[in-house]
């Protein structure tokens, strides 16, 4: 009895460990989703194994909750986080982070400078006083993000290559 339970526990633990290695390696968000789904399934199996070994019926609600949580997680990642920009799937080193921050600062400063210049130009060219406010350059309107990750474009194989 207890030998079989231990064998099961080791199998589940090794399976979950291998899946965690895949979740760490990636390479994409979806691979991690799948790997974490496997980890969650191993967790459900482990709780069920515990309940079976100890004959405890009171942990059964935990199984229900775990199976609910896994669905929400994988669907929301597939829906909202599937598209990730190149190179963002890893942790930056300290130098890279500093470089990126400096770049952003420079960009913001340049944008502020350009905006100030634009406003001055506007003031010089400006016509009558009462229209001054109407003619001011508008802030660029926020573009609505597309509902779906890349609905139209599919960077898959070219049409000629299909069999």
């Amino acid at each position, binding site marked *: 009895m207890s030998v079989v339970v231990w064998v099961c526990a080791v199998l589940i633990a090794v399976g979950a460990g291998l*899946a965690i290695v895949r979740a760490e390696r990636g390479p994409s968000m979806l691979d991690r989703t799948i790997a974490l789904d496997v980890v969650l399934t191993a967790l459900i199996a482990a709780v069920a194994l515990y309940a079976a070994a100890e004959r405890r019926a009171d942990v059964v609600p935990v199984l229900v909750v775990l199976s609910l949580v896994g669905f929400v997680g994988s669907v929301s990642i597939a829906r909202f986080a599937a598209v990730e920009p190149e190179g963002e799937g890893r942790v930056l080193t300290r130098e890279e982070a500093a470089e990126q921050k400096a770049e952003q600062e420079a960009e913001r400063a340049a944008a502020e400078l350009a905006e100030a210049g634009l406003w001055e130009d506007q003031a010089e060219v400006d016509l009558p006083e009462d229209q001054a406010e109407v003619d001011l350059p508008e802030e660029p309107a926020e573009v609505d993000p597309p509902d779906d990750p890349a609905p139209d474009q599919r960077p898959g194989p070219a049409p000629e290559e299909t069999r």
Partner: protein
Amino acid sequence: MTSATWVTIADVASLVLLLGGAFLAFAAGVGVLRFPDLLSRMHAGTKPQVLGLILVLAGLALRLRSGGAVWALVLVVVFQLLTAPVGAHMVGRAGYRTGKVRDDLLVVDELTRDADAATEED
């Protein structure tokens, strides 16, 4: 046969089922780690999500042998049967649209063919 015999039989059957489910969880870990692309990893990862879960929960039900707990386990299985295809569909679609499907590993790619045909008709 006496009821003690049946209890022993149920316990042994439950251990066999638990062992099968645990083996599937292990196989899924190996497959997810070693397979080369998203779709084949999905293929490996969904084995314990349905069959493995059914095996483990059947083993647990044989061990608990009480009405309420068994119905809760049936609920878990039904829920997993409903949600696993939906989740896999979403992951697969997102992977296809973001170009994570390696077409050199595919034997047949009907989706690309049909999508191209549909685009040409427009």
